[in-house]
């Protein structure tokens, strides 16, 4: 296990390399001088300042040295200053991470609560009307864009029925009740699409398990059908289901950029969106790098967790 873990961490290095090279090149590929890009208009005229900044940022050095300097700073959490607020980008981003994590976790939780029963019932009653309904519903679910679903929910629950707020955020540490009240619609929008994926997954991994020999053995020993299904099969089918929903986090984080914008949710997705609108390049660069790293690390953790839960898998 230790060897596998070390191996797996070593495999992350090239991935992180490509990730950093792409985000680093982003600023290089922008039109105009890097100095203009990094410091904004009003200070760009002064030639002395420019020369100073050239040295300061190491722009007089070759490109790979620049990459090295940038990477070294980024590793220490120094991503430069926001062009708009003039505050360190790192601080801005780390302030917005909790809101995204909160929304993401509740969304995933909601999806699992919906999807597990639906997927297992579909698998148990395979090829029945229930199964087809579940399959068609989940296929429709993954075809609906989440932002449209969100808008339809706002029209129905906020404008038409007036039950829920259409946007806004309250921290759960301030007022848990209010916070959950504001969370319902965004979490539903995050969760429904995820639920559609997870239903399909649960169904196919349940079917995989139900074809295995131990299920026949359990049946021949005279265990009741519900015990066989819920005590043995479902438990084993959960392993791949949970693993893959962990890996789906990548999709989910991408989707939150749009959803956070709709619901004015102050997470990392909205921060990146506002940065794009405001041409705040250091923030865009750092935001995408941080999200990318979160995904890589989560994927690693999920992968390791999978090996722990399922020791039969060869440690390749």
């Amino acid at each position, binding site marked *: 296990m230790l060897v596998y873990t070390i191996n797996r961490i070593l495999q992350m290095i090239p991935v992180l390399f490509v990730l950093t090279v792409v985000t680093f090149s982003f600023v290089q590929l922008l039109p105009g001088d890097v100095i203009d890009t990094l410091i904004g208009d009003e200070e760009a005229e002064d030639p002395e300042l420019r020369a100073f900044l050239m040295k300061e940022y190491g722009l007089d050095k070759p490109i790979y040295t620049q990459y090295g300097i940038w990477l070294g700073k980024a590793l220490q959490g120094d991503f430069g200053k926001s062009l708009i607020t003039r505050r360190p980008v790192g601080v801005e981003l780390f302030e917005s991470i909790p809101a995204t994590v909160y929304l993401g976790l509740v969304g995933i939780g909601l999806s699992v609560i919906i999807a597990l029963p639906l997927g297992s019932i579909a698998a148990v009653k395979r090829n029945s009307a229930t199964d087809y309904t579940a399959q068609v519903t989940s296929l429709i679910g993954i075809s609906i*864009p989440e932002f449209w679903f969100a808008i339809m929910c706002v029209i129905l629950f906020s*404008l038409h029925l007036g039950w829920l707020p259409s946007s806004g955020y309250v921290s759960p540490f301030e007022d848990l009740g209010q916070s959950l009240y504001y969370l319902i619609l965004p979490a539903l929008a995050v969760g429904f699409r995820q639920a559609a994926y997870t239903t399909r997954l649960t169904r196919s991994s349940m079917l995989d398990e139900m074809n295995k020999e131990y299920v026949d053995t359990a049946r021949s020993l005279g265990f009741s059908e519900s015990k066989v299904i819920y005590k043995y099969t479902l438990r084993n089918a959960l392993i791949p289901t949970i693993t893959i929903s962990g890996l789906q986090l*990548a999709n989910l984080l991408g989707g939150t*950029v*749009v959803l956070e914008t709709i619901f004015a949710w102050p997470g990392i997705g909205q921060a990146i969106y506002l940065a*794009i609108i405001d041409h705040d390049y250091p923030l865009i660069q750092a935001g*995408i790098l941080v*999200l990318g790293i979160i995904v890589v690390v989560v994927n690693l953790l999920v992968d390791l967790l999978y090996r722990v839960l399922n020791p039969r898998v060869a440690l390749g």
Partner: protein
Amino acid sequence: MASTEFQNGRRSIEEAIKPPTIGERLARYRVILADAFSELYKSKTAFVGFMMLVALFTVLILTPVLTKYNPIKPDYTAFLQKPSAEHIMGTDRYGRDIYSRVLWGGRRLVTIAILAVIFGLAIGIPYGVLSGYYGGWTDSIAMRICDGLLAFPGILLYLLIVTLAREWKLEGFWNDLILIFALGFAFFPEAARLVRSTVLTEKEKEYVEASHTIGEANLYIAMCQILPNCISPLIVNATVRLGFVILIIAALSFLGLGSPPPTPDWGADLSSARDHMERNPLLAVFPGLAICYTVLAFNLFGDGLRDILDPRLAER
């Protein structure tokens, strides 16, 4: 075909090598088509998806005939109207006919999506074949690059590329071209991996060894002999990918990073409909339904195709 004719001895060699007449060709195509259709009919999902796609493409091809209003010309005598006989889906805030905007927007969106997927395949297929065929270091490096690109969560890679296009102030044709490039570029690692994994199993087979023995060039074996055996998983993947690409394009233009305003565009139209949710909520319904229909059609067709082309999965 030809070999059975020889065995039956009914035709001379001269007759057999003569190019087939148009009538014969048509007959042969009819047999192939009938075969394909009866296969298609075996899977309900594939059949429904296929019919939905036929309807979609018919409508999109006939758009100039089916619409009587110019999708970008404002009409200030008829803004924000509810659906009526004149405007069957109503009008937007500039009095433009929603129905004709939905159709024209679809033409553009589907074209871009198809070109993007073709572009992704065009890079991904040779990349995957060569990486799998040569193996060793080439393969390791090529696959780590893929891993790095795949680590970008959801729409973030597109966000980076589209933001670059925005900063360079690219418009119209060039903007669309960048979009196609971004979407195709993000697809290629997936296609490459899929092809590579099939190549890895194919290259161990006897026919490859036989080709080596008679001295065929490596490149010829890889591209002309191994590749054709990897096609069916690719078709499935590309079909499902088309639905995904359409969702991404819609999300990007919903964020205001797609085409500039007067262009009919489902995502952008949805976004501007949000300003009039109280007065005319239906405005937000039609572009969203159009997205759902199109994505669902591709997903159903792709899912069904997978069942047909990979009978092992269909048994589940």
